[in-house]
């Protein structure tokens, strides 16, 4: 799937200061029955977001109109659990392009990068600053600068750098993906496969 190029994103952010947000919460298993990749945003955080009668739960952050934006800020160990890429699809489909946390589960991080969401890992201390800034003013804007690998709280100018490997950075900034890369390697792969004992 081709995705949008990611360079510099300035946006307000939605805070979700909960640890161990697992992918069963991001998109419950019963919504994984589609055979196409569309419409998953409607069921993002379904059971935290809606009551059994489909009425919105007023205390959940996605139902609070004062919070909006293309950045989701989550607690430590975000995206743990199932390998379902549908979780990343749901986040993307809802409109987020970046998730910030102090710690991501590996598969979720990989899935996000593969579909054009930037997972940004910051220190616990900086994550706390972001949560506090949004709590003080929901209109707080963050700037996520991928070329410079830096996230900034615009109101205060406080910033912190983040890591990303060079290959993934190149892909995200150019909208390329791994499948394109691998297609160009097929002769090399076939030669490798010839030697396999399995």
């Amino acid at each position: 799937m081709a995705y949008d190029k990611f360079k510099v994103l300035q946006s307000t952010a939605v805070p979700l200061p909960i640890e161990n947000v697992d992918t069963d919460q991001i998109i419950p298993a019963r919504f994984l029955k589609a055979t196409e990749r569309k419409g998953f945003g409607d069921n993002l955080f379904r059971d935290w977001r809606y009551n059994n009668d489909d009425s919105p739960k007023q205390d959940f952050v996605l139902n609070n109109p004062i919070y909006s934006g293309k950045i989701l800020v989550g607690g430590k160990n975000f995206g743990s659990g199932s390998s379902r890429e549908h979780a990343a699809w749901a986040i993307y489909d809802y409109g987020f392009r970046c998730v910030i946390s102090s710690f991501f589960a590996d598969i979720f991080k990989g899935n996000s990068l593969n579909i054009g969401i930037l997972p940004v890992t910051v220190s616990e201390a900086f994550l706390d600053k972001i949560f506090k800034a949004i709590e003080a003013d929901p209109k707080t804007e963050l700037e996520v600068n991928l070329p410079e690998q830096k996230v900034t709280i615009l109101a205060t100018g406080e910033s912190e750098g983040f890591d990303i490997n060079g290959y993934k950075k190149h892909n995200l900034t150019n909208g390329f993906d791994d499948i394109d890369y691998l297609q160009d390697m097929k002769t090399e792969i076939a030669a490798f496969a010839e030697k396999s004992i399995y």
Partner: protein
Amino acid sequence: MSTNPTTLFDKVWDAHVVRKIEDGPDVLFIDRHFIHEVTSPVAFLGIENRGIGVMYPQRTFATADHNTPTINQHLPVADPLSAKQLAALSSNAEKYGISIWALGSPKNGIVHVVGPENGITQPGMTIVCGDSHTSTHGAFGSIAFGIGTSEVEMVLSSQCIMQPKPKKMRITVNGKLGKGVLPKDVALYIIAQITASGATGYFVEYAGEVFENMTMEGRMTVCNMSIESGARGGMIAPDETTFNYIKGRDKAPKGEDWDKALAYWKTLKTDADAKFDLELSFNGADIEPQITYGTNPGLGTGITRKIPKASEVKDGEASYKKSLAYMDFQEDENIIGKKIDYVFLGSCTNGRIEDFRAFASIVKGKKKADNITAWLVPGSHIVEAQIKEEGILDVLTEAGFELRQPGCSACLAMNDDKIPAGKYAVSTSNRNFEGRQGPGARTLLASPYVAAAVAVTGVVTDPRELIEEEATV
């Protein structure tokens, strides 16, 4: 060898690197790829849209499991969305020449059960599947891990994925396990000690007497749960137990191929001086039957202990309290004696023949408690057949239990097997997340022994009270 000691993980990984990308991931060749109906349809759609094909269809194996009903499997699947996903799996497999064990096939079952039992899973392989419990196959000394749908598309179209090499951890458990302690307890104990994110970024090798003495089924249970501590996967060095398990299975090498494979497999072990990024060790004698009380697999403890106080937990206090509120449990209260509504024996963690033997050994001669609804779901049709052949079904029936048909079932409740909101389930599966077994369902993870003890008493019960001394292993 001694000049450059390497780990088992390094040996297998390095043997599969097609290309190293500077400041990027490795291009890793994949020996075996498993697909199921939930995470593959969009990958096939991607291939269609790009106008590319499947590079090595004979390296991919398809099975239907996540959505499948566990009763009346001979009838058409009632849920139209499930039926559509199952049909997509079958038509994609047929179109691209991929072998498939569809619903109704005598070899159908949960992907992580059918792979090993048919000899597809072998030591030294790289194995992936769009399912996080692919880590199960590491029990054979292979590198096996879960992937996302974009990666399923990568493997189908190029037989490779692009992965940064994880860090290495070794978890050593020496000593002897006590009475009534199963491999599931070992897994839950480790996760409770290191938390649900304690191994994130690592690939784990399990070493020590406890794993050396374990059966293949037990090793699969432990490696299956690796992902629940955040590990990318877990593996155990292959040995005679491994080779004996594989020999003679359908897709295992035969004749000269077997000898050649075996010679290679015997080299697959960590060298004496090899370095890990992190080493942890535990004592097997410290492990008692485990049970979880919270909403991630790290929130568990010994079955006779009290639920810890918030001040004692390693996870954040806010999520801990949210977790207890969801479960309607209090800090510092006993778990023993809690009334339970449902018991689920099954899943890729504990749906193998040994798990049914363990369950039956406890319920034999007793009766199912009236307040319990028990769903006993074999991991595959082959396991189902073994249950019947070994007389286990008779034991279960006499005790008032019924056997369902194979599939993932209530582990993730994508079919009709959902625990109702507010009800408590003791489950041998791998996850106790909020709503995992159905919206509002409350799950306590445990071993087949604990599940059996609960099934006959109706409350959380220490299985050691029901085990005859001479019957223990």
